[in-house]
């Protein structure tokens, strides 16, 4: 039993993206049209610099942030290192720029409130101020 627990711990330590199973991510936006809902692919495209049917601008949390790790795992479906190498290629070929990074969840909420069209991700359960709406949820 002890061996299995050790192995399980080791597995969890080595693959942090597999640890994210239990937490729910919400994608929150400051939009005048409160009916906007996105699917996972659209949110992924938005965060990889793709084209959207709406005029939205993604903001992200820093690489070491726990919510970001879960978002990468559940929505983008790539490891942090792959995301970083993708943006390095985009930046130095002058194609696209990575989403602006905001230092923590509190600051994300503040930024969203002050910038129309801004989109950020947070953990479910975070109190959402008036004026912002949830456009995507993933368990």
């Amino acid at each position: 039993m002890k061996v299995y627990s050790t192995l399980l711990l080791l597995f969890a330590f080595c693959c942090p993206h597999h640890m994210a199973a239990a937490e729910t991510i919400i994608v929150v936006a400051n939009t005048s049209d409160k009916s906007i809902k996105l699917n996972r692919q659209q949110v992924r495209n938005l965060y990889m610099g793709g084209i959207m049917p709406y005029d939205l601008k993604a903001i992200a949390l820093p690489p070491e942030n726990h919510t970001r790790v879960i978002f990468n795992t559940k929505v983008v479906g790539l490891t942090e290192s792959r995301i970083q190498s993708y943006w390095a290629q985009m930046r130095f070929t002058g194609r696209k720029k990575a989403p602006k990074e905001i230092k923590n969840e509190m600051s994300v909420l503040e930024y969203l409130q002050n910038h129309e069209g801004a989109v950020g991700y947070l953990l479910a359960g975070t109190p959402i101020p008036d004026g912002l709406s949830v456009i995507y949820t993933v368990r």
Partner: protein
Amino acid sequence: MTRRLSTLFHTCWLLLLCVAPTLHAETEDKLQLSGFARVILGYLDDENAEYVGYDNSISANQQSLLGLQAEYLFNDELSVTGQVVGFTDDQRNSGLEWLYISYSPSNALQIKLGRQRIPFFNYSDSLDVGFAYPWLTLPQQFYDTAFFSTFDGVLANYQFALNDWQINYEGYWGRFDDKIYLASEEINTQVIGLFGFNTSFAYKNLSLRASYNQGDVNIEQEEARLFSQQLRQFGFANNAEWLDANGLIQFYQLSANYENLDYFLRSEVSKMVSDGGLVADIESFYISAGYNFYPYTFYISYSQKDLHFDHRPSEIPLGVTPELDFLAATYADVIGRFADDKATGIKIGSRWDWQPNIAFKAEMTFVEAQDEISNDYAVKDLGGFDGHAMLYQLGVEWVF
């Protein structure tokens, strides 16, 4: 070697320091300064050969480099970007790699005017940004085949979404006028009417890309030109024609990549067709698979190149006059100097993303050259090479 590395890094840091006060003087959003660096050590286990410039001694001056990029935003739509790269490899010209004005009237459309990298293949425009790809050295049998990397001209990129597919169209037009290096020899080369277009489709974890590129190449080969004239005077027009280094070159490329949290699969295949006899036709491909064990990545790759010339048999009769015999011998010698080149490369390696912007890599490449080795490309026979060698490499990649 150490001195050259040190000079390069000092020059670049000096440049960085000179620009830094300007950076602070501007608002953060107007001027953006960034860069990339790689320090790569390599050792080839065969004393009779060279591969990607590495020989039988530990060397850091083949692929190590430092690049600096400055972007100035005039407004949301208009910006100017410059990128300088200092190479330790003396077969690469250090200096300005990119300098362009970019106009983006919307998220969907971007137009760039100026000096840019040619987007032949997936990584052609980011060859030097090692941080951007998993391998330590790109599959050489594939990436060794694009001889000129920059162009001066215009590039337009348009992307749109269709049922969750991201579709991207890109086209460019311009010219190349610089030196290329073959067999450690500098050759003045001009490519006019250089244009290409590519399209890529991305859906979920899958991305596909196809590209077509062409250019009218003019390679300065004075000896070949004079000899060709001589052959023509003697009436051997067919052989004279073959000695032409000029003409249309066409590149075709296809790629398919798949990646998720745990695995990746990357592949590219290309074909280059040329009109000029002295420019080879090339077929090449690579396929690579990797396993992510964050923050580590392990990968294997296989790549292959088949470069061949359409050698025309000599039409010069032998034993008629000493002059004709001499001409025939010279023709045979010239043909011999434009040898076919077939090689394969098998890689196994790992990448460790230590920090979000720093990665360490270790890689072993087993290279196998078949038949003759032209010495014009990554593999060089220093005499007595049996066609097999192993390259060991360690490196650090940094973006800032």
